[in-house]
């Protein structure tokens, strides 16, 4: 293999979504030399599509505090979340949201001049009372867009160095101690590969929602950081917990924010019944997402779905009136008109549960440090490697994420990982470590295979099979035979993905090649998901099994770790002890 050009930085951030840019800002402000690698121009990252809000107990409209927020998050996680990390996140929520306001984020406002907050699913007052909290800080229904642009603007101001349309391919590890020394990355415009040598490398690559046929996720969400970690021998945690958002537009998959229900919208079956009252008498339509998605799927399965094929339900909001819809939900009105041919001012929106968010990911602690079992420790720090945002599993979301906690997660842990990286970089010797022999070879070999292949299956065909398999075998409700068959099918698809062929052999902006590389990453994420789901014999959060319908705390209150090597599984304990407060003991979860 030819020697690759090497670029040296203090820190490399892979991904320019919310968490990557929040971390980059911290690093740039610390006067460190930071490179941000991103497949797409930063403001095109998928954070842009977040709609409803970011959770913080500012108490601008109703009493609130971080203890209540913490309780809701622990309960929402179905007691799989690590309580120390959850406490950390909830305690820093107000700080990171206020900071964003100071950066210029155009939050909606109350008459008092303070940030507008709306109710959101699973967020309650007073430790799960029937009264909903007002915790979601919103910019109409474009909160993610406003947040991503604000973070980009601040990085422009801080002179962060972006490598736009560069795709990171593989981590580079020191064979001596496993320390991560940076990444090999492909410049899409030229097709050239370089090595980015860094004292600290942050994976902030987002989720893998494109593993499902029906998904709210952007095309770019192919689990790239997960693939990189898995190939480097790092496990993926709790991947069986994949969130299906209750309201994706029927047929198109585009997200309709939970903020619609936060503002007073509700779901109807074909009889015009507000069916959530039966499943969650207190929170009703604002129960946790896993609860609402299961209720909708049950309604459809039992023949109470709407439309000629009885395969969706309706989201009604016309009673809110055009003023509220135009002021608070203008984006979803636009989406509904364009993708569902329904103007919500007059008619209900046809919706179905749609793949949305990966609770699992690269195991990390609340300082962003990636951790993996080593010797007697289940959580030894992997030197030089950090992860934040959806690609990481901290784990604050456990078995099920609450709405608005994803934008909070990426702010808090983007910031904390940036802080920790700066601290760690300062403690290291000035010169970089030298590269091991053959650094970048694995990446070059993958590219060489694609260049050389003259026959084989098309990427699009294999990817379509992967999505159909995951959709059919690993959905809202999971069945033992389907899971076992899903594992076998995914293994066959993984083998096929290693033999794909692309006709495009150009060096210049070869998108066929990018899609082939993305497929390899998606395969790792999908395998981890279905193998972990098949092995977990209980129902908890988003994992709902027909054969084990109950949560089993005695045997299964533990985190899954999936390794690429032979699809091996290990388990590690949940952190039940918070940082300063009493633990929330598991109890039956009703809304």
């Amino acid at each position: 293999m030819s020697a690759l050009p090497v670029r040296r930085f203090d820190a490399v951030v892979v991904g320019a979504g919310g968490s990557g840019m929040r971390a980059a800002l911290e690093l740039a402000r610390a006067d460190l030399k930071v490179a941000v690698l991103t497949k797409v121009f930063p403001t095109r990252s998928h954070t842009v599509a977040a709609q409803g809000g970011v959770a913080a107990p500012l108490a601008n409209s109703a009493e609130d505090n971080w203890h209540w927020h913490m309780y809701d998050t622990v309960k929402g996680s179905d007691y799989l979340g690590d309580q120390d990390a959850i406490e950390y996140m909830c305690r820093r929520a107000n700080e990171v949201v206020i900071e964003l306001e100071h950066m210029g984020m155009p939050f909606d406002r109350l008459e008092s001049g303070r940030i507008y907050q709306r109710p959101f699913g699973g967020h309650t007052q007073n430790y799960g009372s029937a009264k909903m909290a007002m915790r979601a800080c919103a910019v109409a229904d474009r909160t993610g867009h406003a947040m991503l642009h604000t973070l980009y603007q601040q990085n422009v101001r801080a002179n962060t160095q972006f490598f736009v349309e560069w795709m990171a391919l593989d981590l580079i590890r020191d064979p001596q101690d496993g320390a991560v020394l940076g990444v090999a990355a492909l410049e899409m415009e030229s097709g050239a590969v370089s090595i980015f040598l860094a004292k600290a490398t942050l994976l902030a690559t987002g989720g893998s929602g494109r593993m499902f046929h029906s998904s709210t996720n952007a095309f770019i969400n192919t689990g790239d950081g997960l693939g990189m970690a898995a190939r480097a021998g790092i496990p993926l945690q709790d991947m069986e917990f994949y969130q299906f958002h209750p309201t994706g537009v029927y047929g198109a998959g585009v997200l309709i924010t939970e903020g619609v229900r936060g503002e007073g919208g509700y779901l109807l079956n074909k009889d015009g019944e507000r069916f959530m009252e039966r499943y969650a008498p207190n929170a009703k339509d604002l129960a946790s997402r896993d609860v609402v998605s299961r209720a909708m799927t049950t309604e459809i399965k039992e023949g109470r779905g709407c439309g000629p094929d009885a395969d969706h339900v309706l989201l009604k909001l016309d009673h809110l009136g055009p003023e509220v819809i135009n002021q608070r939900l203008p984006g979803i009105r636009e989406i509904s008109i364009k993708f569902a041919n329904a103007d919500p001012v007059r008619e209900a929106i046809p919706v179905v549960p749609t793949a949305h968010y990966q609770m699992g990911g690269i195991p990390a602690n609340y300082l962003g440090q990636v951790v993996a079992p080593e010797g007697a420790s289940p959580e030894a720090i992997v030197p030089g490697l950090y992860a934040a945002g959806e690609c990481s599993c901290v784990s604050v979301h456990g078995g099920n994420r609450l709405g608005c906690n994803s934008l909070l997660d990426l702010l808090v842990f983007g910031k904390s990982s940036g802080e920790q990286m700066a601290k760690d970089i300062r403690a290291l010797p000035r010169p970089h470590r030298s590269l091991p022999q053959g650094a970048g070879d694995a990446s070059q070999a993958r590219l060489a295979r694609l260049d050389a292949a003259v026959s084989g299956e098309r990427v699009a065909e294999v990817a379509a099979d992967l999505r159909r398999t995951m959709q059919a075998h690993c959905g809202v409700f999971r069945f033992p035979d389907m899971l076992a068959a899903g594992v076998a099918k995914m293994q066959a698809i993984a083998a096929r993905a290693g033999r794909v062929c692309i006709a495009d052999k150009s060096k210049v902006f070869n998108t066929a090649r990018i899609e082939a590389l993305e497929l390899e990453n998606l395969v790792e994420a999908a395998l981890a998901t279905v193998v972990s789901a098949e092995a977990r014999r209980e129902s908890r959060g988003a994992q709902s099994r027909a054969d084990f319908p109950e949560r089993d705390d005695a045997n299964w209150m533990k985190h899954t770790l999936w390794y690429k090597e032979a699809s091996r599984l290990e388990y590690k304990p949940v952190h039940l002890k918070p940082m300063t407060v009493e633990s929330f003991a598991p109890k039956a979860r009703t809304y």
Partner: protein
Amino acid sequence: MKLSIYRYDPDQDAKPALRDYEVQLEHSDRMLLDALIKAKAQDDSIAFRRSCREGVCGSDAININGKNGLACITRIADLPEHVTLRPLPGLPVIRDLIVDMTQFFKQYHSIQPYLVNPEAPPERERLQSPREREALDGLYECILCACCSTSCPSFWWNPDKFVGPAGLLQAYRFIADSRDQATSARLDDLEDPYRLFRCHSIMNCVDACPKGLNPTRAIGKIKEMMVKRTV
């Protein structure tokens, strides 16, 4: 549906050419992007950008039968049977439908696209009334897709000197923000025969914006403020 797609790969082609693709549409294909992806399934060498497929990320701006727009929210039902797709006009082509947007972003970066307020921030949020916040509606929603600037003849002529409608819309977004304190510096920066005053109110930008924003109105407001501060 027939797509004629502008093809150019500097690695292999001496010059660009339109190539035709016949695409069999299915019931689930609603948007032009769906058709484009179908064409790419036939020929994986067609290069274009796309990501969110719902009109918020701004990746898939292209020229559709002569008009700029986002492929992902352009309904097939609203298009004729034969559609010609070209890269956005006025920017260098990297390959096929992918343009080099460096000049466009350079102009965006030139307007100080961030809140400037030298006062130490309060412990809580800076207060802003709902009316003050309303002044940002129609401005902050820009997705930087470049449909507007690349439909503007003034930008085609002077992409290095004229900020262009997208950049000026964002300049006004910060001027209009009650929390920003750099209005006079922002106006000074734009008081230039090229940066602002190349806008001749042709209004192609308004016509092209897939988000229904109105850069011409924002530019008019900036010009008004300049007049006001001289009298």
